[in-house]
């Protein structure tokens, strides 16, 4: 039996059949046994029915993005087979319930393994919904794994649900035994070498953002539920008591941003979260934060639009929106983490940047990063520091003439908070003078505009720079920002394995646009391929604007699906 290094498992069924829970259990189990995992789910915008999938790419090697080809497909519904047979190859296996699909379609090389999911679930004393657990048991048998591993994770997942845990274990056992009894050794189709391993986490991008915020000293979080940002709100809600945070769901996104600005003005370290449509409603408040110089961090988890768009799918089409939104002009930061590690550390960093520079800081994620499950060595959060910047809480003498919006060399002026004696000021949505009093004079206007923009050089220094991976010289350079990092790196590795000289430039902060670093990196490229998830190549237009250059080609995807490494490889081959 040849043990494989990498394989992809995928389960499909209807909403309400426990597809996601099953998938996440499987991902976690793999991670506990020395495999790196990438979990990716697809689901439509409904609660019951429809077609949901969850796929886990597992490997002993480093993997950073899901792939299309499926090695083991678990079909809880006929739609799963119809919908995904194109992803199957000559060595793929499909486990399905013969009750649902008496005659499987013909496909060269694909192995069909009928397992009576429903009957076994009922036999175990459970309901139909436990078909997914039976399927998980069958999976483990097919991977040549020890049942004990699955038993542990089932007991852990259903720990708080009493009898349910026992029945799930029984159901899984039946599925496991069925494969061994009916298919013997031929049942082990995806043998993979597994060794127990501790200290690897499996987490979503939103888990990373929530944890990064808590580690970074978050005190108040406001949000309105909107896919794919909602799980930040639920994660923080669960921790509000332990970490003494106020976590609040407001009536709408306009209230979210205004309440957040109020809390921050009064001295609380504050963040909000939403998706593109919610951010549209927050845009009015963005400028309020900017003109009052109230620190604010905004997590914007992108999904395709316009309008309601594709609520449960992914995209990278809010780039220009994030950079330009709101009337008139002011400095802001737009961070674009490429993976869960960057999402974690940059969120903590964002809270510092916001406080240090008293500007709005956006963190752009997307459904693919936010809701995907990614394995990762345990974060070392010990180095995370909480900096409140120039916030003063000590009283002034009555004779001192404190000026909140004093025009300083750095553009940042010390900020007091309500309650501090003799440091009163007005935070004003109107243009204002150094004390915050509304002012329409041309001198006050010029002074305050220049003061706000004077923060830019500092922001450029404190934000993460574009990074090159894979060596300084290459025939082709892949360029991208945000969550395409993993797919580009995996594509680069695949191309290198075939002798191609390829490297990657990833941009983890798109604004302020890192012109000097991009220029330097660009100058060392020969051919360039821009990879991003929007229709018009928005980052490409930023390159044109700031570097006066164009990439040789662009791979643009806007169908709501992630960018797969093999797609990048195919496009790259056209250029090499």
């Amino acid at each position, binding site marked *: 039996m040849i043990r494989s290094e990498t394989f992809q498992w995928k389960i499909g069924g209807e909403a309400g059949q426990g597809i996601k829970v099953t998938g996440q259990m499987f991902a976690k189990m793999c*991670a*506990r046994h020395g495999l790196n995992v990438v979990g990716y789910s697809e689901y439509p915008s409904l609660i019951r029915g429809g077609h949901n999938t969850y796929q886990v790419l597992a490997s002993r090697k480093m993997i950073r993005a899901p792939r299309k080809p499926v090695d083991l497909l678990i079909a809880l519904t006929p739609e799963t087979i119809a919908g995904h047979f194109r992803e199957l190859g000559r060595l793929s296996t499909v486990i399905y319930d013969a009750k649902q699909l008496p005659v499987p379609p013909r496909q060269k090389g694909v192995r069909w393994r009928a397992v009576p999911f429903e009957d076994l679930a009922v036999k175990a004393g459970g309901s139909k919904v436990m078909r997914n657990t039976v399927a998980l048991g069958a999976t483990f048998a097919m991977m040549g794994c020890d049942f004990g591993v699955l038993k542990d994770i089932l007991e852990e997942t259903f720990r708080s649900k009493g009898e349910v845990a026992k029945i799930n274990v029984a159901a899984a056992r039946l599925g496991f035994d069925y494969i061994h009894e009916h298919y013997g050794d031929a049942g082990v189709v995806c043998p993979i070498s597994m060794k127990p391993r*501790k*200290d690897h*986490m*499996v*987490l979503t991008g939103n*888990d990373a953002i929530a*944890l990064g915020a*808590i*580690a970074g*000293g978050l*005190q*108040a979080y*406001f949000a309105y539920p909107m896919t794919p940002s909602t799980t930040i709100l639920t994660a923080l809600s669960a921790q509000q*008591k332990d970490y*003494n*945070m*106020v976590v*609040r769901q*407001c*009536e*709408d996104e*306009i*209230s979210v941003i*205004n*309440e957040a600005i*109020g*809390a*921050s*003005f*009064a*001295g*609380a*370290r*504050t963040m909000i979260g939403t998706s593109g449509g919610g951010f549209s409603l927050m845009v*009015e*408040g963005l400028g*309020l934060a900017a003109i*009052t110089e109230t620190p604010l961090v905004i997590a914007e988890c992108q999904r395709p639009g316009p309008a309601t768009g594709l609520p449960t799918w992914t995209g990278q089409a809010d780039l220009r929106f994030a950079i330009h939104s709101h009337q008139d002009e002011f400095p802001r930061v737009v961070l674009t983490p490429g993976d869960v590690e960057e999402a974690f550390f940059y969120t903590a960093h964002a809270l510092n940047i916001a406080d240090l520079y008293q500007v709005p800081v956006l963190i752009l994620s997307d459904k693919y990063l936010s809701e995907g499950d990614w394995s990762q060595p*345990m*974060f070392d*959060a010990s180095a*995370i*520091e*909480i900096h409140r910047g120039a916030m003063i809480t000590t009283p002034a003498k009555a004779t001192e003439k404190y000026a909140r919006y004093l025009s300083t060399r750095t553009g940042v002026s010390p900020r007091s*908070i*309500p*309650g*501090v004696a003799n440091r*009163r*000021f*007005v*935070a*004003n*949505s*109107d243009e204002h003078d150094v004390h*915050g*009093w*509304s002012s329409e004079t041309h001198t006050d206007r010029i002074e305050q505009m220049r003061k706000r923009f004077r923060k830019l050089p500092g922001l450029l220094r404190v934000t993460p720079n574009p990074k090159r991976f894979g060596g300084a010289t290459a025939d082709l350079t892949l360029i991208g920002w945000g969550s395409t990092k993993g797919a580009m790196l995996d594509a680069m590795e695949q191309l290198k394995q075939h002798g191609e000289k390829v490297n990657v430039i990833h941009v983890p902060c798109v604004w302020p646009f890192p012109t000097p670093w991009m220029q330097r990196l660009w100058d060392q490229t020969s051919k360039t391929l821009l990879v991003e998830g929007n229709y018009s190549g928005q980052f490409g237009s930023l390159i044109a604007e700031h570097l006066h250059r164009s990439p040789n080609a662009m791979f643009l995807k806007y169908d709501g699906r992630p960018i797969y490494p093999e797609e990048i490889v195919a496009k790259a081959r056209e250029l090499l």
Partner: protein
Amino acid sequence: MKTLPLQKSSFESPHFPTWCPGCGDFGIWAALKNALTALGYSKDETVIVYGIGCSGNMTNFMDVYGFHGLHGRPIPVATGIKLANHKLPVIVIAGDGDTFGEGTNHFLHACRSNADITVIVHDNQIYGLTTGQTSPTSEQGTVSKTTPLGSAERPLHPLALALTAGATHVSRGFSGDIPFLTTLFQRAIQHKGFSFIDVFQPCVTFNKVNTYAYFRERVVKLQESGAAAPNNRVKALEQVFDTEHLPIGVFYEEDIPAYHEQLPQLKEKTLLAHAPKKRNISKLLQQLT
């Protein structure tokens, strides 16, 4: 919190009001300063959040910690401030356009959540600062720049909205009766929970219907009219629809926990007082393995 003696002149800013002479805003401004003085709140401890309009221009005329927000949005800003530091009195100064046009959703939800803030609405039934359009509280038939044929819509009823949305302190005043308004402000600010006070505020420049004379003919004190029912929400609702008179006074008040009082993390300390120097999340990271 009390730091007597204070004078109402303590709140004076370097800016003299730009309101039209005779504007009802002057009466509200005076009553507010009187009330804060009587309650003993210092300039440093008082937070006022202003909306946009002539009323919002009070921003420049009060020397306190001020927040001049966006049109329609002072209420959520005030809610956020209170959550960060619930020891401070947080007062909203807004207009009928802010509260019953642009920001009505925020008003209703602040009533229902019982946010511990005091919302004072300068209700002049017109849009003054934008030079004379109808407002959501203008009477049907009002002729204005945008309704030359007379407004086709009926007005919202601020007190009724507050009562049905669950506000725990609902009152109404008249800017032409400063002493009474002062006592109403004191009661509203002291009330623990959401306080709403609608103030009749004649706009001498753009509203030629709801004038001082108009109000003097109709305004009557609730207690005097014998109709006060401050503990009965439904009875209070009946009273607000009184078309013969325009009663002023406290229509309704009840004592239930404010929003922030229901958060266990704010029981002992303010959110600010909990500010961490460092956070330990090892337990949370471990749970992900």
